[in-house]
């Protein structure tokens, strides 16, 4: 598509944004893949519609504030990227656009406070834990609060699991086949510490030694996706320092973090330490990919067959192209019957902090996802992202409370420990 974007005035990401606009031919193949379009059925809330809006803002013919409601509603799920035949890098466009606009954006004091609250708690496990604990206690008051404040409470469990600090090193069982470093993730350490422990046990069982750098922090994805570039860079740089170099891979087990790290190539564009960040991104792998490449130790047959539905986390499937590896891990468990979820490419509505900022659309998507999961016939769903787990659990609680929602690695860990079925 033709445009008049003043590329040279837009900094290091200008070229990226212009290129995405150029590649869009407005064919509409993104429409069925876009969750907000599916819910709202309006062009402004579709990927190609948003591309028009961003183009006009960047060209200067549309005021940014006018485009905001529609651009803010984008989940950043990247379903459109998988669907796009002409290869538009929509994710790079919207992330760059948000970072570009946030600097000059005016927000109301309440909005500022809410965003500040998210940015200052979620990426810090200790703070998040304190906030979540307080939130769990406040849950019964949810109905008295305005929607903006009650939505986050609905996602919280009624009791937080006990904090279980991770060791700095988790040794391999038997002879060592590889040495990796684990990015522990922020939210999952608080909401589901078991995911990291299951990951450590599974890796160890497969002969992998795991380093868990103590000084690591948030990957920066949350800040980057909400346009907070400086904060995202600071987080990322902290990790560039924290992780050792004598390792075979950096392991992520939350899809959001994994895709966030892969976006360092965009975030660091034009920065002096771009090469270092690019190297870091290249070394990082989702745990399912790493295990598939390494070759998985076969689990024993289950005592009784278990049906498991696999939910594609957007930031694994669409952002990192990881679809087959988690499925083959699950299928490798003898007696596990893997089933697909219809509309599997559609986001569950979690999308980082989206379910906190846009609760209505997030809830609609959550209900739709829950209904599709229930229809799969399985009573256990596996996925690779803490955000999806929280969102799907909350949605399923209303429809089908006996359902279990587990991380793929938790399922594998239970199979190794012979307590899955």
């Amino acid at each position, binding site marked *: 598509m033709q445009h008049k974007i003043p590329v040279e005035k837009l900094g290091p990401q200008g070229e990226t944004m212009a290129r995405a606009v150029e590649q869009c*031919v407005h064919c509409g193949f993104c429409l069925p893949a876009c969750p907000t379009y599916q819910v709202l059925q309006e062009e402004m809330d579709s990927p190609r519609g948003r591309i028009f*809006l961003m183009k006009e803002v960047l060209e200067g013919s549309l005021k940014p504030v006018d485009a905001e409601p*529609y651009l803010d509603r984008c989940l950043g799920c990247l379903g459109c990227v998988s669907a796009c*035949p002409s*290869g538009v890098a929509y994710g790079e466009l919207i992330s760059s656009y948000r970072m570009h606009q946030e600097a000059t954006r005016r927000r109301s004091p309440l909005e500022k406070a809410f965003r500040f609250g998210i940015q200052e708690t979620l990426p810090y496990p200790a703070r998040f834990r304190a906030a979540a604990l307080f939130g769990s206690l406040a849950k019964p008051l949810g109905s008295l609060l305005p929607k903006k404040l009650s939505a986050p409470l609905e996602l919280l469990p009624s009791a937080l699991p006990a904090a279980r600090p991770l060791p700095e090193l988790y040794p391999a069982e038997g002879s060592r086949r590889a040495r990796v470093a684990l990015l522990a993730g922020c939210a999952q350490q608080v909401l589901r510490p078991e995911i990291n422990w299951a990951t450590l046990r599974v890796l160890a069982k497969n002969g992998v030694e795991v380093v868990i750098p103590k000084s690591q922090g948030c990957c920066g994805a949350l800040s980057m996706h909400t346009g907070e570039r400086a904060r995202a860079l600071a987080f990322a740089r902290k990790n560039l320092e924290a992780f050792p170099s004598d390792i075979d891979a950096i392991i992520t087990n939350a899809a959001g973090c994994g895709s966030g790290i892969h976006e360092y190539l965009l975030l660091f564009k034009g920065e002096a330490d771009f090469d270092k960040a690019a190297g870091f991104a290249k070394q990082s792998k989702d745990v399912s990919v790493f295990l598939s490449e390494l070759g998985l130790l076969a689990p024993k047959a289950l005592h009784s067959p278990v049906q498991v539905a696999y939910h594609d986390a957007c930031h694994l499937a669409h952002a990192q192209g990881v679809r087959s590896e988690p499925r083959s891990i699950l299928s490798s468990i003898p007696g596990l019957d893997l089933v697909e979820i219809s509309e599997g490419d559609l986001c569950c509505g979690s999308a980082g902090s989206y379910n906190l900022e846009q609760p209505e659309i997030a809830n609609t998507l959550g209900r739709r996802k829950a209904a599709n999961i229930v229809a799969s016939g399985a009573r256990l769903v596996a996925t690779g992202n803490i955000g999806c787990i929280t969102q799907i659990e909350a949605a399923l609680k209303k429809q089908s409370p006996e359902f279990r929602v587990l991380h793929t690695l938790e399922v594998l860990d239970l199979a190794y420990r012979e307590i899955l079925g």
Partner: protein
Amino acid sequence: MSKEVLQELSKLLPAGRLLTAAAALSPYQSDALTAFKAKPLAVALPESAGEVIETVRWCAKHQIPFVARGSGTSLSGGSLPIDGGLVIGLNRLNRILKLDPKERVAVVEPGVVNLDVSKAAAPFGLYYAPDPSSQPVSTIGGNLAFNSGGAHCLKYGMTSNHVLGAKVVLPTGEVVELGGESLENTGPDWLGLFVGSEGLMGVALEIKLRLLPKPEKYHTVLAAYDSLEKAGSAVAMVVASGLLPGAMEIMDSLAIEAAEAAVQAGYPQDAKALLIVELEGETLEVEAEARHLSEVIEASRAYKVQIARNEAERAKIWKGRKAAFSAVGRLSPDYIVQDGVVPRSKLGQALSEIEKLSLRYGLRVANVFHAGDGNLHPLILYDGRVPGELERGEELAGEILKLCVALGGSITGEHGVGMEKKRYLPAMFAEADIELMRKIRQSVDPHELSNRGKMFPGGEAEALVRQGLHPLEKRGVISRE
């Protein structure tokens, strides 16, 4: 137009369903042909047939031109807004009102997506046959307006062969029922007139579709050739052999490159042309035909033949073909998708003429086409940032269309005339024909409100502007009054 007039419409629709802000209108400025842009007065988003009727009546009362659209995937600018007119977005009318497996009929609202009809019919072993490449996106309303085709129309015919009836609001606001549930009708074929009229005769509210039993078996063959001519003559050989495949499609090397980059369909990358032939029907029949087909393909000197071994492989072959248009966006920042038809026997000649034109104009042309129907889709690649390239591309496109007509074909197979080809209408029809069409249109829509400015050349009849009065008019034999 006064503010009060628009306010009257906003009262007819619930809050939030009349878009007037610049940012809300901007994404509606183009359909899938971004070379054309227009800003509408407003976008109405009705959710029921009643609301559509009220909206059209408001347009009729105040003489506001309107365009009804679904997913906006038109490649001819057919769903482009009218400057200062109303866009009626029908996407929220997306209910399947009735699905009768016994009668093999579905009644749907216009905003239902083509593929969703087949999805809903699948549990009964049925499907909706017309399969434009945009089928996961485009709506039945749009398919009806443009009499959409698709790869499998070779065997099953176009949309018009699968529509039994429609409830329509005419541009005057009158609601009529066209056709019926029966396959045979008496009297004038009003439905036939409506289907393919490109939105010039009103808005469909409910559409009765024919469903077909899903073929028991598919046999999908991918044959690679070292020249486009060989692939072209293979098509003639298949037809001459007496086989009637469900689909026969050809892609040339540029299209192969683009499709492969987009969806990794597993196409041979060194091929100059690929032919996809699909047989479908009952197992015994398909198996017998497959043997016959393999002899024909062998005789056609394909250097590589792949046969889909399962549904996944078949889907992959089709995914590449159906993504080909958009995938060309990877090869070039801009392109024009053309849509012309030539008699099947003239395919080879048409292709070599197109190649010569491509060289003469210095622009690359990728070819993807429904070979079985002789429906060409040359994609003209250009860079809009290079001064003059767009104009050269358009000129080349015009030459191709004239070539199609000269060879005894048509200026459009399935994309319609819309905005893009209205100036070529006189290449195919005599002035008197166009005038007759216009009169028929005006008998339904006296003020030309519905999709004004499309299909007919110029604001006024271009023939009139260019050539003045018809000789018969000059002699006073006929008149425009």
